[in-house]
């Protein structure tokens, strides 16, 4: 008995000892290597100050290969400044960020893709306005309309980072060439082409709005694109800020215009079935019938480039490519719908602000672009660094002076509407509910 007891004590002591020694070898060493810090490459990073050994945490929805690319993109910054950037991506970013912030476990920085969500954190007093350096950097590098999305009550809360262009229609250049179709440059041409394709027995358009918890969002993009095309940008702004009611006749007009394609049994849903199949077709597979010729046109953002089956060449002379979703009235300019994320800060330590400033810089956006698959509205972005053809086209559109850019409306609205009733309303609309009932329902939910 006594023997057994002492053996137990040994075991416990051993465990405790192990714990102590593990702590001892866990102490971090200096991040900044002397060789790197002294080299010419690092000269550009001196302006970010001396923050050696500090750590900055970032939380975002970016995962897997995209997250690896992020880590690679700021590697040199880390080596030269000695700041360690700890990035964590989550598939439940929007819901979990809230939980983390409420739980007192906020990240230093978050890449927030919805200005509406950003505003919510400002309203609850959790976000810190950016430092003067970051603000200056952002003002130099980004167009004014981009900055306004992260400005709340006159305070600036975060520079934009990546962007995407949503006003694209995907098509197959190969099929177009074979059938002698031409890329439409106006709305009338687009409809004429759709009729022409429909007459051959193929349904011209394919669409899908199923996206798990976010089901409905691709349809909201359609409506936003048509708001920009049937109305003025000013009306669009009133709509996203609830300056006009959601069931305003102007919104109904845009919805009905989208309906001329989306709810037209002659036009949709190539490769999947009738109109209602849009509701259950996942956004990832919605455009794929283009590759088999079962459908010819698919309106989806630039990031759809990643959804094509392996081996599909995405280029102007390849298997698939995209053209600009044409304007209805060309005299009003070139409306472009897009999205992007903003680097918002929950802390204002110097190293956090240094990272924020760096991410807004031209050096960063070019460093990231060189790794591949990157679009940003940053005007320092050198087109030569953008390899991917669809990204190139996106950057060209963003930098084009005649472009009238507007941010994705559902991301600007309060979450209960923009990622709640608006999404659900679109699902009901596709599923057969009429325009008025759907819009009245969404208006009723916006308080």
């Amino acid at each position, binding site marked *: 008995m006594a023997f057994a007891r002492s053996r137990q004590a040994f075991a*416990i002591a051993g*465990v405790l000892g*192990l714990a102590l020694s*593990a702590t001892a070898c866990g102490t971090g060493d200096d991040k900044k290597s002397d060789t790197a810090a002294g080299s010419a490459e690092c000269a550009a990073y001196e302006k970010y100050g001396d923050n050696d050994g500090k750590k900055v945490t970032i939380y975002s929805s970016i995962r897997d290969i995209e997250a*690896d690319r992020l880590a690679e993109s700021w590697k040199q910054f880390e080596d030269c400044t000695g700041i360690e950037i700890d990035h964590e991506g989550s598939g439940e970013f929007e819901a979990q960020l809230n*939980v983390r912030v409420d739980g007192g476990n906020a990240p230093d920085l978050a890449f927030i893709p919805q200005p509406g969500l950003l505003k919510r954190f400002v309203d609850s007093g959790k976000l810190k306005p950016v430092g003067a350096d970051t603000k200056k950097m952002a003002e130099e590098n980004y167009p004014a309309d981009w900055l306004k999305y992260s400005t709340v009550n006159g305070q600036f809360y975060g520079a934009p980072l990546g962007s995407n262009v949503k006003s694209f229609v995907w098509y197959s250049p190969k099929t177009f060439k074979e059938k002698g179709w031409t890329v439409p440059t106006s709305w009338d041409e687009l409809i004429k082409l759709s009729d022409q394709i429909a007459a051959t027995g193929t349904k011209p358009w394919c669409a899908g709005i199923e996206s798990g918890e976010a089901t409905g969002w691709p349809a909201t993009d359609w409506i936003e694109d048509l708001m920009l095309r049937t109305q003025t940008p000013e009306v669009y702004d009133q709509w996203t800020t609830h300056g006009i009611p959601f069931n305003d006749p102007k919104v109904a007009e845009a919805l009905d215009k989208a309906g001329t394609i989306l709810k037209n049994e002659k036009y949709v849903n190539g490769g999947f*079935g009738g109109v209602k*199949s849009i*509701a259950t077709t996942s956004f990832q597979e919605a455009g794929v019938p283009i590759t088999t010729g079962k459908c010819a046109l698919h309106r989806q953002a630039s990031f759809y480039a990643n959804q094509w089956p392996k081996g599909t060449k995405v280029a102007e002379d390849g298997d698939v490519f995209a053209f600009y979703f044409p304007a209805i009235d060309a005299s009003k300019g070139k409306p472009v719908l897009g999205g992007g994320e903003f680097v918002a800060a929950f802390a204002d330590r110097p190293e956090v602000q240094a990272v924020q400033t760096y991410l807004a810089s031209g050096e960063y956006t070019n460093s990231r672009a060189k790794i591949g698959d990157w679009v940003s509205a940053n005007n320092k972005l050198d087109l030569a660094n953008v390899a991917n053809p669809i990204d190139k086209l996106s950057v060209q559109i963003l930098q084009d002076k005649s472009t009238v850019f507007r941010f994705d409306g559902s991301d600007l609205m309060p979450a209960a509407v923009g990622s709640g009733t608006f999404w*659900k309303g679109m699902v009901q609309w596709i599923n057969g509910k009429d325009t008025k009932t759907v819009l009245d329902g969404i208006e009723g939910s916006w308080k």
Partner: protein
Amino acid sequence: MEFDFAAEQPKFLMLMYGLIAFVAVVGGLLLLLDVVPAWFARRREAQLVAASASGAPLPRRRKPREGMFALFFLLPTLLLLTIGLVAPAIRTTMLSFMDANSNDWIGLRNYGWMFSEDSIVRVLINTLVWVLLVPLVATSFGLLYAVMVDKARFESVAKSLIFLPMAISFVGASIIWKFVYAYRGDGQEQIGLLNQIVVSLGGEPKQWLLDSPLNTLLLIVIMVWIQAGFAMVVLSAAIKAIPADIVEAARLDGVTPWQMFWQITMPSIRPALIVVVVTLSIATLKVFDIVRTTTNGNYETSVIANEMYNQAFRYGQNGQGSALAVFLFILVIPIVIYQIRNIRQQREG
């Protein structure tokens, strides 16, 4: 992707810390559980020895110390219950009377919203349908199956087949059934089992999950598929526990199988039946995974738990989400009370 051991080192370090902390805490507790009672036992022993040596009357066992001892063991549970259950329950109740950002008190407005908003009323009705159908269908099916395979030749194999779905998570099961209900346009190759059957019988493929209220019933099928195995196993065990002499006596009296079932089997397994129905009812009230995975509450299939999550965590409507949570809590209470009373009666009876 290559796996870089050095780059992943911090994670392994964290893992090691976690393991060490676990071993230290659990080991410490086990040691304590071993040492403390042994210490009391030895003390008692010493007292007895001393008492018998001196010839004095045995010292009486002192009750207060035992009370302390019980408290010592209850303390961790009480502490964890307070942190993990009581405090959040109180806070959620408070939040349900506040606005979306939990800044101002707004009285019963969130509850008013719950019963006046058409889409939420729909959610409440759906939940009611779930709670009525799942326990009823799953228990009936499990009972029928248990009675039928009882003492059959391949009983264990037959039982395993029904019990297997229990081993699949709700999300996994939902994904499987999502494929069963999958739809492809007329004339295309169907990837969904149900539509393939319909097509091969000469019908037209249908979008099963789109039409209310059929879609809610189809989701209920998933829950029944998972839970019937649970009902079957518990009830089968109860049937086997019926004393053989009762059955034999009934047989000698010449009962029909029908009478045997209603007069002998049912009364004998009543307690087990109640446990199954109550457990299933509570599980059904809380159902979330199935709805979220298959339709995410679209096409009028949402239930309370799903809507609560959406309101509180996705739309930032803390008040409305909390009100739904409180309502769900209130719905569960009567079932729990019924269960507790039942257990008490059994103990006394």
